[in-house]
């Protein structure tokens, strides 16, 4: 187990800079998820930590030791790849024992550790099979088993669930999380799927275009996104955002957009007439009787059983509302909306930064 620190990490491929000075610390035993859209540099950052990619600038420390110039094998890390990267010509047992064999570990101890890992991951019955004889989920578990056997300081996961179908992905998500709770090994996990990030992470690092947009616990990011990018990236369905103008006179705060006054609680930042983005999450809007609140026309009703998702038209803009339970409303119907003003978010139009 170990702590990990990134200190002003930079990466350039030739003349193209892809990571522009990233710094943050990961505590011993923490489960940190790097999340962001494709090309944001999250995998590159992970690969630099793994020693698979040269570091162009800055330092990476594992347990307060700079590892920049250490070979992968000397960093004491284990990695699970998106494509599993199992050795096709070795059985599950051989795959899991490979790293110990390279280290010339004692055969009995190796067998014991493989057996323990196999028990943890329910692979006992599959130990003598070849990877080609396994399903996707089983292969993923073998890849994890290969990492566990090593008992490394840090686990790295590079989009490990992307090749699995939706149902299996949910199951494996829980399995990885349970595994972490059991082993308490420092883990860095890369994904582009914000739901994976929200459900698994102790802390999330949101990345975009080679910089860190925000670092925080899942609920911090959800409740207090520090900028528009994080606000729109975290949460599903995504936050509703409108361009508007901030109005603050007579002791109240509101945003004018589409000819409608969107409610806000009083805040210190922001000046009268400032161009802003107004954000409200689909779950923070409720339906009231027509005529009350903000008038909206129903476009689509999407029942999912436990929840109902409504796509509404408000002054020509699309607005998504998620209701718990069922609803009687029909497309083309007009409804009233009540906004939970305390949950509304405000961002500067130019910089996208949060205004509190």
């Amino acid at each position, binding site marked *: 187990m170990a702590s990990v620190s990134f200190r002003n990490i930079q990466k350039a491929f030739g003349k193209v800079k892809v990571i522009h000075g990233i710094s943050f610390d990961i505590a011993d035993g923490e489960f940190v998820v790097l999340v962001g859209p494709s090309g944001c540099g999250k995998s590159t950052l992970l690969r630099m930590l793994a020693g698979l990619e040269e570091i162009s600038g800055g330092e990476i420390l594992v347990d307060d030791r700079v590892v920049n110039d250490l070979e992968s094998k000397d960093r004491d890390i*284990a*990695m699970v790849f998106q494509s599993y*990267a199992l*050795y096709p*010509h070795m059985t599950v047992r051989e795959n899991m024992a490979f*790293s110990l064999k*390279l280290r010339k570990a004692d055969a009995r101890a190796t067998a014991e550790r493989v057996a323990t890992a196999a028990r943890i991951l329910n692979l006992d019955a599959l130990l003598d099979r070849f990877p080609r004889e396994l399903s996707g989920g089983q292969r993923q578990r073998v890849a994890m088993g*290969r990492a566990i056997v090593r008992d490394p300081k840090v686990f790295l996961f590079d989009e490990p669930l992307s090749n699995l179908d939706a149902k299996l992905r949910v199951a494996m998500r829980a399995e990885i999380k349970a595994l972490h709770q059991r082993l308490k090994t420092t883990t860095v996990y890369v994904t582009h799927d914000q739901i994976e990030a929200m459900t698994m992470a102790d802390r999330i690092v949101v990345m975009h275009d080679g910089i860190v947009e925000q670092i925080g616990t899942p609920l911090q990011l959800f409740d207090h996104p520090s900028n528009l990018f994080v606000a729109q990236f975290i949460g599903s369905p995504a936050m509703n955002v409108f361009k508007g103008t901030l109005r603050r006179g007579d002791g109240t705060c509101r945003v004018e957009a589409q000819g409608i006054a969107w409610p806000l609680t009083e805040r210190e930042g922001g000046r009268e007439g400032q161009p802003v983005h107004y954000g409200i999450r689909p779950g923070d809007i409720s339906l009231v009787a027509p005529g009350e609140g903000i008038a909206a026309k129903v476009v689509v009703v999407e029942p999912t059983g436990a929840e109902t998702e409504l796509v509404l038209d408000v002054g020509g803009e699309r607005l998504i509302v998620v209701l718990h339970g069922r609803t009687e409303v029909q497309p083309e119907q007009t409804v009233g909306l009540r906004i939970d003003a305390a949950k509304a978010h405000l961002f500067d139009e130019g910089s996208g930064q949060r205004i509190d």
Partner: protein
Amino acid sequence: MSRGFSWRKVSTEAQLLLVGIPVLLWTLIPVYHLLLFAISQRDSATSGRLWPADPTLQNFGIVLGQKHFYLTHFWVQIGNSLLIAVATGLITLFVATCAAFAISRLKLRGGRTVLNLALITYFIPAAFLAVPMYKTMANYGLLNNRWSMILAMVTIAAPYCIWVLKQASDKLPWELDEAARIDGASPLQLFRLVYVPLMVPSLVAVGTYALLLAWNEYLYGFLLLSKENEIPLAVALGNFLSADDSPWELLMATGFIYALPPAAIYYAFKRYMVSGLTAGAVKS
């Protein structure tokens, strides 16, 4: 579909057969002649019959027993052929595998150049190099030594083998190398424990190619080796024609025996040959 039969399918089949049958005949007629001569009596070999009146295996007996002036070193010569072919196969395989691994997996600087040079050697027919090769072997004092033939054949076979193996190597997923590196493998361990086992089909194909190339070679054997007990069988077969009155039936019987090992090897490895030699031919 209610029936697996359509005129379009029949027409496609017919066209294929129309091309295939002549090609098959074209290929088989020489083999047929080879066999026909080999089982004919000396005086009836050129009688023009489709099948000899009294087929005999006596010619094979003469060949295997070395009971003819031209055949006194038959077993030594077939041994030479075998030694040269196997050594060429193994050495080529070693050189080409190491080169392909270094270029494809270790991304060695200058690898691209080596590969392009290998390709360029194909613009020069092997026969053009025969005289320079003769001179080089003479400089090293290797003439009349079977090593000269082996080295020459490795030189000719290696570029193509490197090219094919590099293409096949490129298809192995990169993550395997990365996983092995993280697992603690050195480049040599990566080569031995991961790369070579996964390349076996291509290695078999390429090794067989080099082996057969050397087995079938005539010109280089003829130039570099001249002693009766050092020449490969291919050259010895050529010597049958040095007299006016050649024993055709023995030439063909020996030729038939000479053709058997390649056929056996090809048959044994045919499953690798197709997949191995075309591996990397197209981007999939």
